[in-house]
Protein backbone atom coordinates (compact mmCIF):
# COMPACT_ATOMS: atom_id res chain seq x y z
CA UNK A 1 0.00 0.00 0.00
CA UNK A 2 1.26 3.44 -0.87
CA UNK A 3 1.88 6.01 1.79
CA UNK A 4 1.64 9.71 1.39
CA UNK A 5 3.99 12.13 3.02
CA UNK A 6 1.45 14.62 4.26
CA UNK A 7 -0.60 11.85 5.71
CA UNK A 8 2.39 10.08 7.07
CA UNK A 9 2.81 13.04 9.32
CA UNK A 10 -0.89 13.25 9.76
CA UNK A 11 -2.71 9.90 9.75
CA UNK A 12 -0.76 6.86 8.52
CA UNK A 13 -2.22 4.01 10.59
CA UNK A 14 -4.56 3.90 13.57
CA UNK A 15 -2.14 4.28 16.49
CA UNK A 16 0.20 6.78 14.96
CA UNK A 17 -2.69 8.50 13.21
CA UNK A 18 -4.63 9.05 16.39
CA UNK A 19 -1.51 10.31 18.09
CA UNK A 20 -0.74 12.75 15.31
CA UNK A 21 -4.30 13.93 14.90
CA UNK A 22 -4.73 14.56 18.60
CA UNK A 23 -1.44 16.37 18.87
CA UNK A 24 -2.57 18.58 16.01
CA UNK A 25 -5.94 19.25 17.61
CA UNK A 26 -4.30 19.96 20.94
CA UNK A 27 -1.71 22.31 19.46
CA UNK A 28 -4.47 24.13 17.61
CA UNK A 29 -6.42 24.36 20.84
CA UNK A 30 -3.38 25.82 22.57
CA UNK A 31 -2.85 28.41 19.86
CA UNK A 32 -6.50 29.39 19.65
CA UNK A 33 -6.74 29.41 23.43
CA UNK A 34 -3.91 31.90 23.68
CA UNK A 35 -5.39 33.99 20.85
CA UNK A 36 -8.67 34.16 22.69
CA UNK A 37 -7.09 35.20 26.00
CA UNK A 38 -6.94 38.97 25.54
CA UNK A 39 -10.62 38.95 24.63
CA UNK A 40 -11.46 37.03 27.75
CA UNK A 41 -10.49 39.88 30.06
CA UNK A 42 -13.89 41.45 29.49
CA UNK A 43 -16.49 39.42 27.68
CA UNK A 44 -18.26 41.02 24.76
CA UNK A 45 -22.03 40.60 24.59
CA UNK A 46 -22.58 40.58 20.84
CA UNK A 47 -26.17 39.39 20.60
CA UNK A 48 -29.14 38.37 22.69
CA UNK A 49 -28.14 35.87 25.40
CA UNK A 50 -24.46 36.59 24.86
CA UNK A 51 -23.54 34.62 21.75
CA UNK A 52 -24.93 32.73 18.77
CA UNK A 53 -25.89 29.68 20.80
CA UNK A 54 -28.41 31.97 22.58
CA UNK A 55 -28.20 29.81 25.67
CA UNK A 56 -27.77 32.77 28.01
CA UNK A 57 -24.69 31.08 29.42
CA UNK A 58 -21.53 33.13 29.59
CA UNK A 59 -18.81 30.50 29.89
CA UNK A 60 -16.01 33.07 29.80
CA UNK A 61 -16.94 35.33 32.71
CA UNK A 62 -13.84 36.32 34.61
CA UNK A 63 -14.71 39.46 36.58
CA UNK A 64 -17.87 38.36 38.40
CA UNK A 65 -17.53 35.81 41.17
CA UNK A 66 -19.99 34.81 43.88
CA UNK A 67 -17.98 36.88 46.35
CA UNK A 68 -18.03 40.19 44.47
CA UNK A 69 -21.65 40.12 43.27
CA UNK A 70 -23.27 41.77 46.29
CA UNK A 71 -24.93 45.03 47.29
CA UNK A 72 -21.68 46.87 47.98
CA UNK A 73 -19.82 46.16 44.76
CA UNK A 74 -22.63 45.44 42.33
CA UNK A 75 -25.31 47.83 41.14
CA UNK A 76 -26.20 50.68 38.80
CA UNK A 77 -23.16 52.54 37.50
CA UNK A 78 -24.99 55.18 35.53
CA UNK A 79 -28.28 55.83 33.74
CA UNK A 80 -28.77 57.55 30.42
CA UNK A 81 -31.84 59.08 28.75
CA UNK A 82 -33.05 57.50 25.48
CA UNK A 83 -36.00 58.32 23.22
CA UNK A 84 -38.19 55.27 23.80
CA UNK A 85 -38.70 52.07 25.73
CA UNK A 86 -36.01 49.40 25.47
CA UNK A 87 -37.05 45.86 24.55
CA UNK A 88 -33.91 44.52 22.90
CA UNK A 89 -31.04 43.34 25.06
CA UNK A 90 -28.33 46.01 25.36
CA UNK A 91 -25.06 44.75 23.88
CA UNK A 92 -21.50 45.33 25.04
CA UNK A 93 -18.20 45.48 23.15
CA UNK A 94 -14.89 46.36 24.78
CA UNK A 95 -12.14 48.46 23.20
CA UNK A 96 -14.01 49.89 20.22
CA UNK A 97 -12.09 52.48 18.29
CA UNK A 98 -14.62 55.12 17.29
CA UNK A 99 -13.17 57.53 14.71
CA UNK A 100 -12.54 60.93 16.29
CA UNK A 101 -13.52 59.80 19.79
CA UNK A 102 -10.80 57.36 20.78
CA UNK A 103 -11.18 53.88 22.25
CA UNK A 104 -14.20 53.14 24.42
CA UNK A 105 -15.94 50.21 26.03
CA UNK A 106 -19.32 50.62 24.35
CA UNK A 107 -22.88 49.67 25.29
CA UNK A 108 -25.26 49.52 22.31
CA UNK A 109 -28.93 50.15 23.00
CA UNK A 110 -31.87 49.92 20.57
CA UNK A 111 -35.16 51.57 21.49
CA UNK A 112 -38.77 51.02 20.46
CA UNK A 113 -38.55 54.47 18.82
CA UNK A 114 -36.19 52.83 16.28
CA UNK A 115 -33.05 54.53 17.55
CA UNK A 116 -29.72 52.88 18.14
CA UNK A 117 -27.38 54.48 20.69
CA UNK A 118 -23.75 53.86 21.51
CA UNK A 119 -22.81 54.86 25.07
CA UNK A 120 -19.54 54.74 26.91
CA UNK A 121 -19.96 51.90 29.37
CA UNK A 122 -17.64 53.14 32.06
CA UNK A 123 -18.54 56.75 32.82
CA UNK A 124 -21.02 59.44 31.90
CA UNK A 125 -18.92 62.47 32.78
CA UNK A 126 -17.37 65.09 30.49
CA UNK A 127 -17.17 64.10 26.84
CA UNK A 128 -19.10 60.93 27.56
CA UNK A 129 -22.18 62.78 28.80
CA UNK A 130 -23.78 62.55 25.37
CA UNK A 131 -24.02 59.28 23.40
CA UNK A 132 -20.92 58.39 21.37
CA UNK A 133 -23.31 58.24 18.45
CA UNK A 134 -27.04 57.85 17.79
CA UNK A 135 -28.87 56.76 14.64
CA UNK A 136 -32.62 56.89 14.16
CA UNK A 137 -34.04 54.61 11.52
CA UNK A 138 -37.54 56.15 11.41
CA UNK A 139 -38.40 57.00 7.83
CA UNK A 140 -42.16 57.06 7.17
CA UNK A 141 -41.61 57.84 3.50
CA UNK A 142 -39.78 54.54 3.08
CA UNK A 143 -42.30 52.69 5.23
CA UNK A 144 -40.13 52.49 8.36
CA UNK A 145 -42.52 53.46 11.17
CA UNK A 146 -43.34 52.25 14.65
CA UNK A 147 -46.44 50.23 15.48
CA UNK A 148 -49.15 52.28 17.26
CA UNK A 149 -50.56 52.64 19.90
CA UNK A 150 -47.68 51.83 22.22
CA UNK A 151 -44.89 52.57 19.75
CA UNK A 152 -43.43 49.18 18.87
CA UNK A 153 -40.25 49.76 16.88
CA UNK A 154 -37.03 47.84 17.20
CA UNK A 155 -37.93 44.98 19.57
CA UNK A 156 -35.44 42.25 18.81
CA UNK A 157 -31.73 42.15 19.47
CA UNK A 158 -29.28 42.53 16.63
CA UNK A 159 -26.01 40.76 16.19
CA UNK A 160 -22.85 42.86 16.33
CA UNK A 161 -19.84 41.94 14.27
CA UNK A 162 -16.92 43.47 16.13
CA UNK A 163 -14.20 42.89 13.57
CA UNK A 164 -16.28 44.06 10.61
CA UNK A 165 -17.04 47.33 12.34
CA UNK A 166 -13.40 47.92 13.16
CA UNK A 167 -11.51 47.08 10.03
CA UNK A 168 -13.74 47.75 7.11
CA UNK A 169 -12.02 46.86 3.83
CA UNK A 170 -14.02 47.76 0.76
CA UNK A 171 -12.90 46.08 -2.43
CA UNK A 172 -13.40 47.76 -5.75
CA UNK A 173 -15.92 46.02 -7.95
CA UNK A 174 -16.29 45.46 -11.69
CA UNK A 175 -19.26 44.07 -13.59
CA UNK A 176 -18.51 41.29 -16.09
CA UNK A 177 -21.48 40.23 -18.26
CA UNK A 178 -23.95 41.24 -15.60
CA UNK A 179 -22.07 39.55 -12.75
CA UNK A 180 -20.49 41.79 -10.13
CA UNK A 181 -16.93 40.74 -9.40
CA UNK A 182 -15.13 42.34 -6.49
CA UNK A 183 -11.42 42.89 -6.25
CA UNK A 184 -11.35 40.26 -3.51
CA UNK A 185 -12.91 37.69 -5.87
CA UNK A 186 -10.25 38.36 -8.49
CA UNK A 187 -7.49 38.19 -5.89
CA UNK A 188 -8.76 34.85 -4.60
CA UNK A 189 -9.17 33.23 -8.03
CA UNK A 190 -5.91 34.69 -9.33
CA UNK A 191 -3.97 33.83 -6.18
CA UNK A 192 -5.27 30.29 -6.19
CA UNK A 193 -4.25 29.83 -9.81
CA UNK A 194 -0.75 31.19 -9.17
CA UNK A 195 -0.32 28.99 -6.09
CA UNK A 196 -1.62 25.95 -7.93
CA UNK A 197 0.86 26.40 -10.78
CA UNK A 198 3.74 27.21 -8.42
CA UNK A 199 3.00 24.20 -6.26
CA UNK A 200 2.69 21.95 -9.28
CA UNK A 201 6.07 23.21 -10.52
CA UNK A 202 7.76 22.70 -7.15
CA UNK A 203 6.34 19.22 -6.66
CA UNK A 204 6.96 18.02 -10.24
CA UNK A 205 10.07 19.82 -11.41
CA UNK A 206 12.40 20.56 -8.49
CA UNK A 207 14.65 18.31 -6.44
CA UNK A 208 12.71 19.25 -3.32
CA UNK A 209 9.46 18.13 -4.96
CA UNK A 210 11.15 14.92 -6.04
CA UNK A 211 12.26 14.29 -2.45
CA UNK A 212 8.76 15.01 -1.15
CA UNK A 213 7.22 12.58 -3.61
CA UNK A 214 9.79 9.92 -2.77
CA UNK A 215 9.09 10.25 0.95
CA UNK A 216 5.39 10.06 0.19
CA UNK A 217 5.80 6.84 -1.71
CA UNK A 218 8.08 4.96 0.65
CA UNK A 219 9.77 6.65 3.56
CA UNK A 220 12.24 3.82 4.30
CA UNK A 221 13.43 3.47 0.72
CA UNK A 222 13.71 7.23 0.41
CA UNK A 223 15.96 7.27 3.46
CA UNK A 224 18.13 4.51 2.02
CA UNK A 225 18.44 6.46 -1.23
CA UNK A 226 19.96 9.34 0.71
CA UNK A 227 17.00 11.66 0.80
CA UNK A 228 16.84 13.95 3.83
CA UNK A 229 13.44 12.83 5.09
CA UNK A 230 13.25 15.37 7.92
CA UNK A 231 13.97 18.17 5.51
CA UNK A 232 11.20 17.23 3.13
CA UNK A 233 8.73 16.74 5.98
CA UNK A 234 9.66 20.20 7.28
CA UNK A 235 9.26 21.63 3.79
CA UNK A 236 5.84 20.03 3.43
CA UNK A 237 4.65 21.56 6.69
CA UNK A 238 6.14 24.92 5.75
CA UNK A 239 4.56 25.03 2.29
CA UNK A 240 1.25 23.62 3.48
CA UNK A 241 0.93 26.11 6.34
CA UNK A 242 1.86 29.00 4.07
CA UNK A 243 -0.81 28.08 1.53
CA UNK A 244 -3.37 27.63 4.30
CA UNK A 245 -2.42 31.06 5.63
CA UNK A 246 -3.08 32.55 2.20
CA UNK A 247 -6.50 30.92 2.31
CA UNK A 248 -7.14 32.36 5.76
CA UNK A 249 -6.23 35.88 4.65
CA UNK A 250 -8.48 35.58 1.61
CA UNK A 251 -11.41 34.37 3.75
CA UNK A 252 -10.82 37.29 6.11
CA UNK A 253 -10.93 39.77 3.23
CA UNK A 254 -13.95 38.11 1.62
CA UNK A 255 -16.10 38.09 4.77
CA UNK A 256 -14.47 41.13 6.30
CA UNK A 257 -14.07 39.45 9.66
CA UNK A 258 -11.52 37.46 11.65
CA UNK A 259 -12.34 35.33 14.67
CA UNK A 260 -10.57 32.51 16.49
CA UNK A 261 -12.82 29.71 15.23
CA UNK A 262 -12.84 30.82 11.58
CA UNK A 263 -10.64 27.93 10.50
CA UNK A 264 -12.59 25.11 12.13
CA UNK A 265 -15.14 24.24 9.48
CA UNK A 266 -12.73 25.12 6.64
CA UNK A 267 -10.21 22.72 8.16
CA UNK A 268 -12.65 19.81 8.33
CA UNK A 269 -13.86 20.44 4.81
CA UNK A 270 -10.27 20.70 3.60
CA UNK A 271 -9.41 17.35 5.14
CA UNK A 272 -12.42 15.78 3.45
CA UNK A 273 -11.53 17.40 0.11
CA UNK A 274 -8.07 15.81 0.21
CA UNK A 275 -9.70 12.41 0.61
CA UNK A 276 -12.22 13.08 -2.16
CA UNK A 277 -9.59 14.45 -4.51
CA UNK A 278 -7.47 11.36 -3.98
CA UNK A 279 -4.59 11.59 -1.52
CA UNK A 280 -1.87 13.82 -2.86
CA UNK A 281 -3.73 14.51 -6.09
CA UNK A 282 -3.71 18.30 -6.49
CA UNK A 283 -6.01 18.45 -9.50
CA UNK A 284 -8.46 16.14 -7.81
CA UNK A 285 -8.51 18.29 -4.67
CA UNK A 286 -9.15 21.48 -6.64
CA UNK A 287 -11.92 19.85 -8.71
CA UNK A 288 -13.48 18.46 -5.54
CA UNK A 289 -13.33 21.89 -3.90
CA UNK A 290 -15.11 23.52 -6.82
CA UNK A 291 -17.76 20.79 -6.97
CA UNK A 292 -18.36 21.16 -3.26
CA UNK A 293 -18.45 24.96 -3.21
CA UNK A 294 -20.78 25.29 -6.18
CA UNK A 295 -23.15 22.48 -5.30
CA UNK A 296 -23.51 23.42 -1.61
CA UNK A 297 -24.47 26.94 -2.69
CA UNK A 298 -26.90 25.69 -5.34
CA UNK A 299 -28.49 23.21 -2.95
CA UNK A 300 -28.90 25.69 -0.10
CA UNK A 301 -30.40 28.28 -2.46
CA UNK A 302 -32.79 26.19 -4.54
CA UNK A 303 -33.83 23.28 -2.35
CA UNK A 304 -35.46 22.85 1.06
CA UNK A 305 -33.14 20.25 2.52
CA UNK A 306 -33.57 20.62 6.28
CA UNK A 307 -29.89 21.15 6.99
CA UNK A 308 -27.39 23.91 7.47
CA UNK A 309 -24.95 24.82 4.71
CA UNK A 310 -22.14 22.94 6.44
CA UNK A 311 -24.42 19.98 7.04
CA UNK A 312 -25.19 19.76 3.32
CA UNK A 313 -21.50 20.07 2.47
CA UNK A 314 -20.63 17.28 4.88
CA UNK A 315 -23.43 15.07 3.53
CA UNK A 316 -22.06 15.55 0.01
CA UNK A 317 -18.56 14.71 1.20
CA UNK A 318 -19.83 11.50 2.80
CA UNK A 319 -21.67 10.53 -0.39
CA UNK A 320 -18.67 11.35 -2.60
CA UNK A 321 -16.29 9.36 -0.41
CA UNK A 322 -18.66 6.39 -0.55
CA UNK A 323 -19.05 6.61 -4.33
CA UNK A 324 -15.34 6.95 -5.01
CA UNK A 325 -13.31 5.80 -2.00
CA UNK A 326 -10.13 5.99 -4.07
CA UNK A 327 -10.72 9.68 -4.82
CA UNK A 328 -12.20 11.46 -7.81
CA UNK A 329 -9.07 11.04 -9.90
CA UNK A 330 -7.46 8.25 -7.91
CA UNK A 331 -4.25 8.41 -5.93
CA UNK A 332 -1.15 9.77 -7.57
Amino acid at each position, binding site marked *: MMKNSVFFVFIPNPV*RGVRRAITTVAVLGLLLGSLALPALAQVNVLTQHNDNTRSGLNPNETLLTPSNVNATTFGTILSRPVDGMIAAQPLYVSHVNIPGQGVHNVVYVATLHNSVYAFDADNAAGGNASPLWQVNFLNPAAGVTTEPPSELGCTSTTRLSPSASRNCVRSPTVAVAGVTVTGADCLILGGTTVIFIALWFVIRHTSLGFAIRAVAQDIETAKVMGIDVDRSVRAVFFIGSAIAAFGGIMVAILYNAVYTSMGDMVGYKGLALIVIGGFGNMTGAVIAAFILGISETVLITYTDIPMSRDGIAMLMLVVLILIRPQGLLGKT
Partner: protein
Amino acid sequence: MLDAYVITILTLMGIWSVVALGLNVITGLAGQFNLGVGVYMGTGAYASAMLTTAAGFTFWEALPCAIAASACMGFLTGLPALRVREDSLAVLSIGLVFVFESLIIYLPYFGGPLGISRLPRATFAGEPATNQAYLLIVAGALVASIAATLYLRRSWMGLAWESIREDETAAQVLGIDPARYKLYAFTIGAAFAGLGGVLYAHFIRFVTPYDFGFLPSIYVLVMVVFGGLGTVRGAVFGACFLTLLPELFRFVQDYRNLIYGLTLVLLMLYQPRGLLGDGSYAWRAMRTGWTRLRAIRTTGRPYASNP
Protein backbone atom coordinates in the same frame (compact mmCIF):
# COMPACT_ATOMS: atom_id res chain seq x y z
CA MET B 1 -22.88 11.25 52.38
CA LEU B 2 -21.00 12.91 49.59
CA ASP B 3 -20.88 16.56 48.66
CA ALA B 4 -23.29 17.41 45.79
CA TYR B 5 -20.33 18.71 43.77
CA VAL B 6 -18.39 15.49 44.24
CA ILE B 7 -21.46 13.46 43.26
CA THR B 8 -21.87 15.47 40.05
CA ILE B 9 -18.24 14.99 39.10
CA LEU B 10 -18.34 11.28 39.89
CA THR B 11 -21.52 10.81 37.85
CA LEU B 12 -20.02 12.62 34.86
CA MET B 13 -16.86 10.54 35.18
CA GLY B 14 -18.98 7.37 35.09
CA ILE B 15 -21.01 8.55 32.10
CA TRP B 16 -17.97 9.51 30.03
CA SER B 17 -16.31 6.21 30.96
CA VAL B 18 -19.26 4.31 29.48
CA VAL B 19 -19.07 6.38 26.26
CA ALA B 20 -15.29 5.94 26.11
CA LEU B 21 -15.71 2.17 26.48
CA GLY B 22 -18.08 2.27 23.51
CA LEU B 23 -15.54 4.06 21.32
CA ASN B 24 -12.86 1.71 22.66
CA VAL B 25 -14.76 -1.22 21.15
CA ILE B 26 -14.89 0.43 17.72
CA THR B 27 -11.48 2.12 17.56
CA GLY B 28 -9.48 0.27 20.20
CA LEU B 29 -10.54 -3.34 19.76
CA ALA B 30 -11.64 -3.47 16.13
CA GLY B 31 -9.28 -0.72 14.91
CA GLN B 32 -11.93 1.25 13.01
CA PHE B 33 -10.92 4.89 13.33
CA ASN B 34 -14.02 6.84 14.33
CA LEU B 35 -14.21 10.56 15.06
CA GLY B 36 -17.99 10.61 15.33
CA VAL B 37 -18.97 8.86 18.55
CA GLY B 38 -21.25 11.84 19.27
CA VAL B 39 -23.67 10.40 16.70
CA TYR B 40 -24.28 7.30 18.81
CA MET B 41 -24.33 9.15 22.10
CA GLY B 42 -26.72 11.69 20.60
CA THR B 43 -28.99 8.98 19.16
CA GLY B 44 -29.29 7.38 22.59
CA ALA B 45 -29.86 10.69 24.35
CA TYR B 46 -32.39 12.01 21.84
CA ALA B 47 -34.26 8.70 21.58
CA SER B 48 -34.63 8.61 25.33
CA ALA B 49 -35.54 12.30 25.51
CA MET B 50 -38.24 11.90 22.85
CA LEU B 51 -39.66 8.73 24.39
CA THR B 52 -39.86 10.13 27.91
CA THR B 53 -41.16 13.60 27.05
CA ALA B 54 -43.38 12.94 24.00
CA ALA B 55 -44.42 9.30 24.35
CA GLY B 56 -44.72 9.14 28.14
CA PHE B 57 -42.20 6.33 28.67
CA THR B 58 -40.43 6.05 32.01
CA PHE B 59 -36.62 6.10 32.19
CA TRP B 60 -36.40 2.32 32.53
CA GLU B 61 -38.76 1.70 29.60
CA ALA B 62 -36.95 4.20 27.40
CA LEU B 63 -33.46 2.90 28.26
CA PRO B 64 -33.54 -0.37 26.24
CA CYS B 65 -35.35 1.32 23.34
CA ALA B 66 -32.76 4.11 23.20
CA ILE B 67 -29.88 1.63 23.37
CA ALA B 68 -31.47 -0.34 20.53
CA ALA B 69 -31.83 2.87 18.52
CA SER B 70 -28.12 3.69 18.93
CA ALA B 71 -27.18 0.12 18.06
CA CYS B 72 -29.18 0.50 14.82
CA MET B 73 -27.41 3.79 14.18
CA GLY B 74 -24.09 2.03 14.79
CA PHE B 75 -25.04 -0.65 12.27
CA LEU B 76 -26.06 1.95 9.66
CA THR B 77 -22.92 4.07 10.07
CA GLY B 78 -20.87 0.88 10.13
CA LEU B 79 -21.96 0.05 6.59
CA PRO B 80 -19.70 2.71 4.99
CA ALA B 81 -16.77 1.22 6.93
CA LEU B 82 -17.08 -1.84 4.74
CA ARG B 83 -16.21 0.30 1.73
CA VAL B 84 -13.60 2.73 3.04
CA ARG B 85 -10.69 2.26 5.42
CA GLU B 86 -8.39 4.21 7.71
CA ASP B 87 -7.96 7.86 6.68
CA SER B 88 -11.07 7.92 4.52
CA LEU B 89 -13.12 6.29 7.27
CA ALA B 90 -11.94 8.89 9.79
CA VAL B 91 -12.90 11.73 7.47
CA LEU B 92 -16.20 10.04 6.73
CA SER B 93 -17.02 9.82 10.43
CA ILE B 94 -16.28 13.54 10.79
CA GLY B 95 -18.77 14.16 7.98
CA LEU B 96 -21.39 11.96 9.61
CA VAL B 97 -21.23 13.76 12.93
CA PHE B 98 -21.84 17.12 11.23
CA VAL B 99 -24.70 15.69 9.18
CA PHE B 100 -26.24 14.27 12.36
CA GLU B 101 -25.93 17.56 14.26
CA SER B 102 -27.33 19.50 11.33
CA LEU B 103 -30.32 17.17 10.93
CA ILE B 104 -31.16 17.37 14.63
CA ILE B 105 -31.10 21.15 14.45
CA TYR B 106 -33.07 21.58 11.23
CA LEU B 107 -35.60 18.75 11.29
CA PRO B 108 -38.76 20.05 12.98
CA TYR B 109 -39.16 17.13 15.41
CA PHE B 110 -36.24 17.46 17.78
CA GLY B 111 -36.71 20.89 19.34
CA GLY B 112 -34.26 22.62 16.99
CA PRO B 113 -31.19 24.34 18.37
CA LEU B 114 -32.87 24.74 21.76
CA GLY B 115 -32.99 20.98 22.23
CA ILE B 116 -35.36 19.11 24.50
CA SER B 117 -35.74 20.20 28.09
CA ARG B 118 -37.59 18.99 31.21
CA LEU B 119 -36.60 15.35 30.87
CA PRO B 120 -38.09 13.33 33.74
CA ARG B 121 -35.80 12.07 36.48
CA ALA B 122 -34.90 8.40 36.45
CA THR B 123 -36.78 6.35 39.02
CA PHE B 124 -34.94 4.21 41.52
CA ALA B 125 -36.89 1.69 43.62
CA GLY B 126 -40.17 3.34 42.61
CA GLU B 127 -39.19 6.88 43.53
CA PRO B 128 -37.60 9.69 41.51
CA ALA B 129 -33.88 9.15 41.86
CA THR B 130 -31.84 11.61 43.88
CA ASN B 131 -28.40 12.42 42.54
CA GLN B 132 -26.93 9.83 44.89
CA ALA B 133 -29.26 7.12 43.63
CA TYR B 134 -28.46 8.19 40.08
CA LEU B 135 -24.76 7.81 40.81
CA LEU B 136 -25.52 4.21 41.78
CA ILE B 137 -27.35 3.67 38.48
CA VAL B 138 -24.38 5.10 36.56
CA ALA B 139 -21.95 2.99 38.56
CA GLY B 140 -24.05 -0.08 37.76
CA ALA B 141 -24.02 0.77 34.04
CA LEU B 142 -20.25 1.30 34.15
CA VAL B 143 -19.63 -2.04 35.85
CA ALA B 144 -21.89 -3.75 33.31
CA SER B 145 -20.04 -2.08 30.41
CA ILE B 146 -16.63 -3.02 31.81
CA ALA B 147 -17.75 -6.62 32.35
CA ALA B 148 -19.21 -6.79 28.84
CA THR B 149 -16.03 -5.37 27.26
CA LEU B 150 -13.79 -7.75 29.19
CA TYR B 151 -15.98 -10.68 28.16
CA LEU B 152 -16.02 -9.57 24.52
CA ARG B 153 -12.24 -9.25 24.45
CA ARG B 154 -11.80 -12.82 25.65
CA SER B 155 -14.46 -14.16 23.28
CA TRP B 156 -14.00 -15.37 19.73
CA MET B 157 -15.33 -12.02 18.53
CA GLY B 158 -12.62 -10.17 20.48
CA LEU B 159 -9.93 -12.28 18.81
CA ALA B 160 -11.49 -11.65 15.42
CA TRP B 161 -11.52 -7.89 16.06
CA GLU B 162 -7.90 -7.96 17.13
CA SER B 163 -6.86 -9.80 13.99
CA ILE B 164 -8.78 -7.35 11.79
CA ARG B 165 -7.16 -4.46 13.60
CA GLU B 166 -3.68 -5.87 13.13
CA ASP B 167 -4.02 -6.98 9.51
CA GLU B 168 -7.32 -7.09 7.70
CA THR B 169 -6.06 -9.02 4.68
CA ALA B 170 -4.39 -11.68 6.81
CA ALA B 171 -7.57 -12.05 8.89
CA GLN B 172 -9.56 -12.54 5.71
CA VAL B 173 -7.16 -15.23 4.53
CA LEU B 174 -7.70 -17.04 7.83
CA GLY B 175 -11.42 -17.17 7.11
CA ILE B 176 -12.54 -14.27 9.29
CA ASP B 177 -15.14 -12.13 7.55
CA PRO B 178 -14.00 -8.54 8.27
CA ALA B 179 -17.29 -7.00 7.14
CA ARG B 180 -19.30 -9.00 9.64
CA TYR B 181 -17.04 -8.34 12.60
CA LYS B 182 -16.69 -4.65 11.76
CA LEU B 183 -20.46 -4.33 11.80
CA TYR B 184 -20.60 -6.15 15.15
CA ALA B 185 -18.02 -3.71 16.53
CA PHE B 186 -19.92 -0.67 15.31
CA THR B 187 -23.24 -2.00 16.63
CA ILE B 188 -21.92 -2.98 20.06
CA GLY B 189 -19.75 0.12 20.48
CA ALA B 190 -22.67 2.34 19.48
CA ALA B 191 -24.90 0.58 22.01
CA PHE B 192 -22.42 1.42 24.80
CA ALA B 193 -22.16 5.02 23.64
CA GLY B 194 -25.96 5.18 23.43
CA LEU B 195 -26.21 3.94 27.02
CA GLY B 196 -23.83 6.74 27.99
CA GLY B 197 -26.01 9.18 26.05
CA VAL B 198 -29.18 8.09 27.88
CA LEU B 199 -27.43 8.41 31.24
CA TYR B 200 -26.13 11.84 30.27
CA ALA B 201 -29.55 13.06 29.08
CA HIS B 202 -31.36 12.04 32.26
CA PHE B 203 -28.62 13.43 34.47
CA ILE B 204 -28.44 16.86 32.85
CA ARG B 205 -32.17 16.53 32.00
CA PHE B 206 -31.74 18.81 29.00
CA VAL B 207 -30.25 17.91 25.61
CA THR B 208 -29.14 20.18 22.78
CA PRO B 209 -27.65 19.15 19.42
CA TYR B 210 -24.34 20.75 20.39
CA ASP B 211 -23.81 18.32 23.26
CA PHE B 212 -23.21 15.54 20.73
CA GLY B 213 -21.36 17.35 17.96
CA PHE B 214 -17.81 17.10 16.69
CA LEU B 215 -15.96 18.49 19.72
CA PRO B 216 -17.53 16.11 22.26
CA SER B 217 -16.68 13.27 19.85
CA ILE B 218 -13.06 14.43 19.75
CA TYR B 219 -12.99 14.65 23.55
CA VAL B 220 -14.07 11.03 23.82
CA LEU B 221 -11.41 9.95 21.35
CA VAL B 222 -8.86 11.93 23.34
CA MET B 223 -9.98 10.15 26.53
CA VAL B 224 -9.51 6.72 24.98
CA VAL B 225 -6.12 7.55 23.49
CA PHE B 226 -4.99 9.35 26.65
CA GLY B 227 -5.60 6.28 28.79
CA GLY B 228 -4.33 3.75 26.25
CA LEU B 229 -6.13 2.74 23.08
CA GLY B 230 -7.62 -0.76 23.13
CA THR B 231 -7.51 -1.30 26.89
CA VAL B 232 -10.44 -1.17 29.32
CA ARG B 233 -8.36 0.39 32.10
CA GLY B 234 -7.16 3.05 29.65
CA ALA B 235 -10.63 4.05 28.48
CA VAL B 236 -12.00 4.31 32.02
CA PHE B 237 -8.93 6.05 33.40
CA GLY B 238 -8.76 8.48 30.48
CA ALA B 239 -12.44 9.39 30.81
CA CYS B 240 -12.23 9.86 34.59
CA PHE B 241 -8.96 11.77 34.51
CA LEU B 242 -9.89 14.12 31.69
CA THR B 243 -13.27 14.83 33.28
CA LEU B 244 -11.48 15.63 36.51
CA LEU B 245 -8.58 17.58 35.01
CA PRO B 246 -10.48 20.83 34.27
CA GLU B 247 -11.89 20.71 37.81
CA LEU B 248 -8.44 20.24 39.34
CA PHE B 249 -7.17 23.25 37.42
CA ARG B 250 -10.14 25.45 38.21
CA PHE B 251 -7.81 27.85 40.06
CA VAL B 252 -6.04 28.86 36.84
CA GLN B 253 -9.43 29.91 35.42
CA ASP B 254 -9.03 31.09 31.82
CA TYR B 255 -5.92 29.06 31.30
CA ARG B 256 -7.70 25.77 32.01
CA ASN B 257 -8.00 24.83 28.37
CA LEU B 258 -4.35 25.69 27.83
CA ILE B 259 -3.38 23.27 30.60
CA TYR B 260 -5.69 20.67 29.06
CA GLY B 261 -4.07 21.06 25.64
CA LEU B 262 -0.55 21.15 27.07
CA THR B 263 -1.17 17.91 29.00
CA LEU B 264 -2.28 16.21 25.79
CA VAL B 265 0.68 17.45 23.76
CA LEU B 266 3.18 16.33 26.39
CA LEU B 267 1.51 12.96 26.75
CA MET B 268 1.44 12.34 23.01
CA LEU B 269 5.09 13.31 22.71
CA TYR B 270 6.38 11.17 25.59
CA GLN B 271 3.80 8.41 26.05
CA PRO B 272 2.23 7.86 22.64
CA ARG B 273 0.64 4.59 23.71
CA GLY B 274 -1.41 6.36 26.37
CA LEU B 275 -0.73 6.77 30.07
CA LEU B 276 -1.83 3.22 30.94
CA GLY B 277 -1.55 1.57 27.52
CA ASP B 278 0.47 -1.57 26.89
CA GLY B 279 4.14 -0.65 26.93
CA SER B 280 3.65 2.71 28.63
CA TYR B 281 5.97 3.68 31.46
CA ALA B 282 3.32 3.63 34.20
CA TRP B 283 1.87 0.30 33.11
CA ARG B 284 5.30 -1.38 32.85
CA ALA B 285 6.19 -0.12 36.32
CA MET B 286 2.93 -1.47 37.69
CA ARG B 287 3.47 -4.85 36.03
CA THR B 288 7.02 -5.11 37.38
CA GLY B 289 5.86 -4.14 40.85
CA TRP B 290 3.13 -6.74 40.75
CA THR B 291 5.52 -9.49 39.62
CA ARG B 292 7.92 -8.61 42.44
CA LEU B 293 5.11 -8.60 45.00
CA ARG B 294 3.94 -11.99 43.83
CA ALA B 295 7.46 -13.36 43.97
CA ILE B 296 7.86 -12.16 47.54
CA ARG B 297 4.53 -13.63 48.49
CA THR B 298 5.18 -17.05 47.00
CA THR B 299 8.83 -17.46 47.98
CA GLY B 300 9.23 -15.00 50.81
CA ARG B 301 12.21 -13.49 49.01
CA PRO B 302 12.54 -10.50 46.70
CA TYR B 303 12.35 -11.31 43.01
CA ALA B 304 15.99 -10.41 42.41
CA SER B 305 17.31 -12.89 44.96
CA ASN B 306 15.43 -15.83 43.46
CA PRO B 307 17.81 -18.40 42.06
